[in-house]
């Protein structure tokens, strides 16, 4: 019984914009789903970008997760997944830090997905989703087949939408949690970007 996993256009766009803002470092972030989501078929409605420096250090990760958790409670969402792009262009395996964080998320949301960006497939004109997904269930990591993973409304529309965002260089004003820690007035929710994506 294969469980399905869907990513909204908003969540997908944020992941790609994050990767484009910091192409030279590893990046990570969490994926949010609606509260009460069925972990058998989960739809990720939003993504919150976390860091681009020292992803392995715990204190700011804990601070970020607490703040995101608090936001989620007001917005009727839950932290249900995690995304990561490696620093090295060819690296396609999740590193120990990503696994640890995702296992922690899976304690609260079973079958949490770890979305990995395939760096080689990224381009300003996106032709492939460039994502691969592994899922943590029953204490093991399993790779998700492409047919059980979709971007909404459909892959082509999402790719066109993201390519258009990239051509407008919207990644320059994209804010992750590290940016917020550097300048506390920057909005890690990227509310102003949301209206441009929808």
């Amino acid at each position, binding site marked *: 019984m294969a469980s399905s996993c869907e990513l909204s256009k908003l969540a997908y766009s944020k992941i790609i914009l994050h990767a484009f803002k910091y192409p*030279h470092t590893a990046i990570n972030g969490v994926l949010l789903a609606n509260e009460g989501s069925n972990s058998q078929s989960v739809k990720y409605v939003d993504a919150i970008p976390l860091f681009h420096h*020292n992803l*392995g*250090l*715990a*204190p*700011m*990760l*804990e*601070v970020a*997760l*607490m*703040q995101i*958790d*608090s936001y989620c409670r007001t917005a009727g969402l839950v932290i249900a997944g995690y995304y990561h792009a*490696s*620093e*090295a*262009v*060819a*690296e396609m395996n999740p*590193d*120990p*830090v990503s696994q*640890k*964080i995702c296992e*922690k998320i899976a304690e609260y949301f079973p079958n949490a997905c770890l979305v990995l960006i395939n760096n080689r497939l990224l381009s300003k004109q996106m032709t492939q989703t460039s994502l691969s997904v592994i899922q943590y269930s029953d204490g093991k990591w399993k790779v998700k087949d492409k047919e059980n993973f979709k971007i909404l409304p459909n892959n082509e529309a999402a790719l066109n939408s993201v390519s258009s965002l990239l051509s407008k260089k919207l990644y*320059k004003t994209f804010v992750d949690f590290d940016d917020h*820690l*550097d300048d*506390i*007035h920057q909005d890690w929710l990227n509310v102003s970007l949301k209206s441009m994506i929808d």
Partner: protein
Amino acid sequence: MEKQYTHWEDVRDLLRNWREENCRQSEDVVDMWNDVLANHFGKLGDEGWLVLEQVFIAALDCHNMEVANFCLSKLNQEFPDSLRVKRLKAMKYEASEKYDHALDILDLIIKKDETNAASRKRKVTIYKSQGMIIEAIKELTDYLRIFMADQEAWMELCDLYISQQEWNKAAFCVEELMLHSPFNHLYLQRYAEIKYTQGGYENLEVARTYYSQAAKLNPKNVRALYGLMLTSVHMASNSKCPSQKKKESIKLSEWASNQLSQLQGSNDSKLFSSQILEGLGNLQIGNDSKN
């Protein structure tokens, strides 16, 4: 880049700034070169060569090989026997993932000039690009035995150790940095972060101490303030903490929370400190238990 730079002198000054501050704004550098500066290259004089090197590296970063090749050929024409230009050639091979060619050139440079620090560091990045972190660490530690005062290298080694979860070795690197610059709040904050991640009550205490010092040196360091709140609250709720330290921790946590409120211009972080108290134990991701 909000301001549109059209005057070549403004672009020249901006690039000079970025060179001095070692900023990585590769896309903007290449765009400004293409749009403005390329047509005024002759007016740059000797600075032109520095600009060409800067644009070359930025072009490699953006994988714009046309611009990179143009810059390299001009530099090669002017400085045919230069080791510095040879290193740029090695970088071009590195950008094309021809790592063996790149390593050959770098080894030749090092043989000719053993004091060439930049070439040795490029070898480290070649290993890092291929995901060969252990080899990168070995190369970098060999480098640091010779060039012990290179702070950038110590920081890079710290990052490599963090990626391998070797907390003691990462902490050692930051200790070296703190010896060089004891008043650099960023080093103190980094040390606190590593200690916190290591886990255990004693490390928590050390982390709090270093976060306090960082926040004292720069009360606007948001990470230090959050870290101070986090460590103080953890300590205050820990059974190993004597009551004197508990009171101290609570005061520190309140101070940090006030500082954050002031910086933010809102009361959100007061809310946050009560969230931490609530969330304690739920979201700990550090290695050992905090008890």
